[in-house]
């Protein structure tokens, strides 16, 4: 009897213990936070982060110690961003060092978060330990609605910062209820890469800033081929599955939206027209299929790198990697136009914590103002460490005329693309993440052949409305 009792007690205890540990069992790696930018890009292996160059290795210790400034009281502010050491060294370190040299009485302490960024700052906020300056992207609006960040509108006005000239529509992504909660720092949006050799072979003129969606859908058909004649397609027009930076911008270019003025408007004739073309392209095999991507266990970005794609629509982060590929003869251009300007934002902004004390908030404002200034943004754009958000920097000769790994690319299109960016209503509410998850889910269902475009939009409309009703 004793042994049985023991077994029961043990099992019970285990039942309890396992249940309790269950929730903490997040052995997996979450896709940080820039998720929908780099990492979601069709499982892109070439994430923005990994490509950031480690150009300035020196003195990373400076931010924590250093000599006290002679003038003024010394303030230490903390700054957090996602990514790895490479991201820090490539994207932030040079600018932060320059900043501390210029403002010796402000020290910047950097917290680099490799994984689960959102969860981390969420917890820090709940525990009143939020760093003074945080990097945010699409996730920012959700946090802003909870009162996490300082309203910067007054400061922007009193400092005479022209948001329209500097960031155009992108500022809308960081505006909630008329209040601006972040200054755009890292920029970027969907751009188009095209393989010149494959275009030559197919005898299609190179795409330019005036290319239309019709040209695009026409070209992907011509670019899809069985090059070695074994009966299996091995060269595709493009790779466009459920990644929102592709179909999402196309909806807008075609005159549609997902959410507008707080209303779900996804089930519209414009969207159906676009989605039907989008789906046909996939079903006809002009797009690398899920089965293919699964087998190769690589993202669509890699297919372009291997010369198997005519075009690739994604963020700027592929420029460095592609330009290192010797046999790849490519250039970049704006994404194809529809009936109106459109572009999907992929950047991030810098915010100030609402809970920081006033002295630190002031220092933090000086800091983010510097980081987004022309001087600092030029450092960011140098060598394409990342895409500056500042439109003036993007159109400057220094940025446009630089060479990337010895190549001349049409870098001027980045500024043009950024100017064309429009912000869907999706980005203006705390529901961004949930809506986008659901949208991707239904897009995938359609592409896998389980929904028609009509059904896909109907389901999205219904489910989006339900999601919105919960906020």
């Amino acid at each position: 009897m004793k042994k049985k009792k023991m077994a029961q007690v043990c099992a019970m205890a285990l039942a309890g213990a396992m249940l309790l540990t269950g929730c903490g069992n997040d052995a997996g790696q979450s896709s940080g936070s820039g998720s929908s930018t780099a990492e979601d890009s069709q499982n892109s292996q070439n994430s923005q982060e990994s490509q950031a160059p480690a150009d300035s290795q020196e003195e990373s210790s400076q931010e924590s110690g250093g000599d006290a400034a002679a003038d003024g009281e010394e303030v230490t502010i903390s700054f957090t961003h996602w990514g790895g050491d490479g991201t820090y060294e490539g994207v932030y370190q040079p600018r932060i060092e320059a900043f501390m040299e210029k403002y010796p009485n402000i020290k910047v302490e950097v917290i680099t978060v490799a994984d689960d960024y959102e969860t981390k700052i969420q917890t820090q906020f709940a525990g009143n330990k939020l760093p003074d300056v945080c990097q945010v992207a699409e996730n920012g609006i959700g946090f802003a609605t909870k009162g996490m960040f300082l309203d910067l509108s007054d400061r922007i006005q009193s400092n005479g910062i022209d948001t329209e000239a500097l960031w155009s529509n992108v500022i809308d992504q960081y505006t909630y209820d008329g209040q601006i909660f972040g200054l755009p720092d890292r920029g970027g949006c969907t751009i188009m890469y095209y393989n010149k050799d494959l275009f030559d072979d197919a005898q299609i003129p190179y795409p330019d800033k005036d290319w239309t969606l019709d040209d695009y859908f026409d070209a992907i058909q011509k670019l899809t081929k069985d090059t070695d004649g074994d009966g299996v397609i091995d060269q595709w027009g493009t790779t466009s599955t459920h990644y929102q930076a592709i179909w999402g911008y196309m909806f807008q270019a075609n005159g549609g939206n997902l959410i507008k003025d707080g209303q779900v408007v996804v089930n519209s004739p414009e969207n159906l027209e676009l989605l039907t073309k989008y789906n046909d392209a996939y079903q006809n095999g002009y797009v690398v299929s899920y089965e293919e991507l699964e087998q190769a266990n690589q993202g669509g970005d890699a297919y372009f790198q291997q010369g198997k794609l005519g075009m690739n629509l994604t963020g700027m982060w592929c420029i460095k990697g592609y330009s290192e590929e010797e046999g790849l003869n490519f250039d970049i251009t704006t994404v194809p136009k529809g009936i109106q300007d459109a572009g999907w934002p992929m950047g991030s902004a810098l915010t100030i914590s609402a809970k920081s004390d006033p002295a630190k908030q002031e220092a933090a404002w000086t800091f983010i103002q510097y980081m987004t200034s022309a001087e600092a943004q030029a450092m960011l754009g140098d060598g394409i460490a990342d895409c500056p958000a500042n439109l003036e920097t993007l159109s400057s000769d220094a940025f446009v005329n630089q060479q990337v790994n010895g190549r001349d690319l049409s870098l001027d299109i980045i500024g043009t693309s950024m100017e064309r960016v429009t912000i869907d209503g999706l980005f203006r509410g705390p529901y961004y993440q949930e809506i986008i998850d659901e949208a991707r889910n239904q897009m995938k269902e359609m592409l896998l052949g389980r929904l028609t475009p009509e059904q896909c939009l109907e389901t999205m409309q219904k489910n989006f409305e339900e999601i919105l009703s919960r906020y």
Partner: protein
Amino acid sequence: MSDKKSRKKVPYTDRAKRQRRWFFFFISPWLFGFLAMTLGPMIYSFAMSFTDWDMFTQMNFIALDNYKQAFTDSRFLISVKNTFIYTFMSVPVNLLLSVAMAYLLSFRLKGMKVFRTIYYIPAVVPAVASCVLFKNILATKGILNQGLALLGIQGPRWLLDKECVLGGFVILALWTVGSTMVLMLSAINSVGEELYESAHLDGATRFQMFKGITIPQITPIIFFNLITGIIGALQTFTQVYMLTDGGPDYASSMIVPYLYKNAFSYYRMGYASSMAWILFAIVMVFSLIVMKSSTMWVFYEEEVK
């Protein structure tokens, strides 16, 4: 029995007191961990499950609304259903396979140790690593389907078809059968030799001995593995998170990944807590059912009269 009685009457001696103190001293790290890291959060999460807390703003008491919502949330109900289907498929198959393998590995043949090691190795591989591996194996044109193609079978799109995705997870679960197998093996090895000897003298066949001696003798271990297996399966997280993120269209969504998403992606901490407690209730019910049933099939030597 009499010994127990007499001990009760005698007051604790100094020695017993000292021993008791040492006892608490030695278990104190665990005790502290349990109170601070387990019991505390548990109570907190129970309280949270009656609020609408989002981790940012003031929490409001909303009584049973979270629980009501859970029972009308179709995505949660699908997740519960998937979790049950997965549990009922993976646990029995895992047990059968581990007993069968343990039995075969219990023979004292040359090189058996090598085989035991080989079969145990997958259990040592971290879950995340196996998931990455299985992403390749279960791919539409992956190794598994290539193998099936050799047999003339057209394999499904394991991770893309709604009907097959849970089957894919069961296949992944079998990969770690080694950890259960090891427990079964040690149980089989500890079955008394004399039982087999006498059965042998009585002319029993190998199968009769397996059925009549080995299996009854190891039922306590089977029972243990059944309980832990059910609990483990009900709490499946890593596989879903790594392989499909609940897709396609929630066909592989399970309770823990779904509540994790609600808590940390959509900031519904209160709602997520209520789901965690529903899961706790489910686990309790299953465990109790299995324990109640154990009198019918679990064999303990002490019970032999």
